[in-house]
């Protein structure tokens, strides 16, 4: 039996299993955006199929009586080990997440969060979120369509990304299109509160919007620590 073929089959099976884990546990929502969720079942099936193809080949090699007793080359060993690194990294750091540090690295503009894309089509039938507040800062028409203005009550769930004492901090949520590498942070400044929350603490904030210059800020009536949502990114 060829050692390298067997080792490759094992690594392919591990990757197929890793994709299956991401799929079944719904952990894929931490790594990918909604547009690329399909990659996970697709990867699970295709890598599983590649594993089966390898096992069939190994079986045929054995049946045909032509058996390679080759050791693995340096190139094989390095390639196979390299492909194990991401799986080991996830096991080593299972709670990896994009938090306040990632916000500080991903902000591209002069201070505030970046604009995502096209502003989403305003939908007055749903509660405004971080993205809506961001576009309401720039567009009066957008704000009016969604009924966003001075005194608008709002509930936002996000993590603290720039704690500046208990009375003022930034609440942020990422928008992910394809994968965490393209995550874009959306933030709202929150005023009020009595307890200081360290960076990366997930909070549900209820309050009303107030204009402060050209930006809306959320004046908090109630702040509650919550667990990280099942889907940590904005959809």
């Amino acid at each position, binding site marked *: 039996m060829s050692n390298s073929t067997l080792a490759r089959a094992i690594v392919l099976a591990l990757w197929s299993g890793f994709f299956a884990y991401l799929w079944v546990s719904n952990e894929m929502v931490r790594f990918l955006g909604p547009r690329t969720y399909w990659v996970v079942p697709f990867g699970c099936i295709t890598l599983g199929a590649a594993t089966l193809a390898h096992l069939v080949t190994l079986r045929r090699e054995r049946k045909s009586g032509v058996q390679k007793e080759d050791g693995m080359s340096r190139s094989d060993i390095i390639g196979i080990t390299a492909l194990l690194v*991401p799986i080991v*990294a996830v096991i*080593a750091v299972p709670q990896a997440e994009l938090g306040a540090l990632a916000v500080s690295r991903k902000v591209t*503009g002069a201070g505030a969060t970046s604009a995502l894309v096209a502003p989403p089509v305003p939908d007055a039938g749903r509660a405004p979120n971080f993205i809506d507040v961001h576009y309401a800062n720039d567009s009066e028409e957008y704000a009016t369509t969604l009924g966003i203005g001075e005194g608008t009550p709002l509930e936002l769930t996000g993590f603290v990304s720039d704690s500046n004492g208990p009375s003022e901090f930034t609440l942020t949520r990422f928008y992910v299109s394809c994968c965490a590498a393209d995550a874009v942070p959306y933030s709202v400044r929150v005023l009020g509160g009595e307890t200081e929350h360290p960076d990366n603490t997930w909070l549900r904030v209820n309050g009303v919007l107030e204009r402060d210059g050209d930006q809306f800020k959320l004046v908090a009536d109630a702040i509650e620590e919550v667990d990280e949502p099942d889907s940590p990114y904005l959809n």
Partner: protein
Amino acid sequence: MSIDTITVRRPDTRGLTAALVAILVGLLLLGRVGGLEDVPAAGTFVLIFTSLVVEALPFVLMGALVSAIIEVYVPVSWFTRVARLPLPFQLPAAALGGFAFPVCECGSVPVARRLIAKGMHPAAGLAFMLASPILNPIVLASTWVAYSGRGVGAEMVLGRAGLGLILALTAGWAIGTEKAGELLRPRPGERDGSHDHTFETSPARFNAFTSHLASDFFFMGRFVVLGGAIAALMQTAIPQSIVGGLAETPVVGALALMGLAFVLSLCSEADAFVAVSFVQFPLGSQLSFLVFGPVVDAKLALLYGATFRRRFVLRLVAVALPVTLAGSLWFEVIIR
């Protein structure tokens, strides 16, 4: 049953294996026992790194699959017929072939390598490789979606497709002048692909297919992992705001965003959603990000280095940078 044994003497790799296993175990212990998971930078790095690999790996497999089909199931005579076409026909036909190959850049490299090895003109193979991550329908659709809200969806799609096609043709023509053997880096144990293999049975053909599939997948996969690690490291360590101050001047802005595209190593199917967030940069500079990134980035540089002979990356940058810069400046003039 008698067993034929083929023995291939390999250098002793037990030391290397032990060292690599020790590194993996050390990484595991550092994370679970050493408190690495409490370090924010480690969490950010691992998430970005793994997400890049998770997103890219199925595409690498698809690229390896197509490459293996070409190697084992498509006769060389087919490529010989294509190679007889005059280059002025072959080159644009190959570049436009990207429309029909909806995978990102990680998948197009092994396919282009196999096409060139099987007899397609190197210039045409390179044009296909460079065009397909930009011209494929999914990428153009995502570009349209990203920019339509700013009212320039059609302009950005046309600009991206047009400049991407020009860049692929120019780079293919300028770099693909060498013969396949001079352009491609040989791989240990790989046979010359310019002749048809003879398979006595279909199981033998299937075995060859799985062997090529795995060979390409594992070869490309390691560079995707390494490139993903470098991109994640740079995303974790370097604030993107450092390019923000360079937005005012179109030339400097375009160069800054090309540099950022290299660092970020985004999939071409997602990069438009990031490019559009650079609101302080002119549209021409954003176009340079969208055209340069799918052709040259940190992860691709490693893939290219493993696939092509020395200095390929430098030659590609020498062509891609001025073409993209000039094209993006023209675009800015036209769209203003």
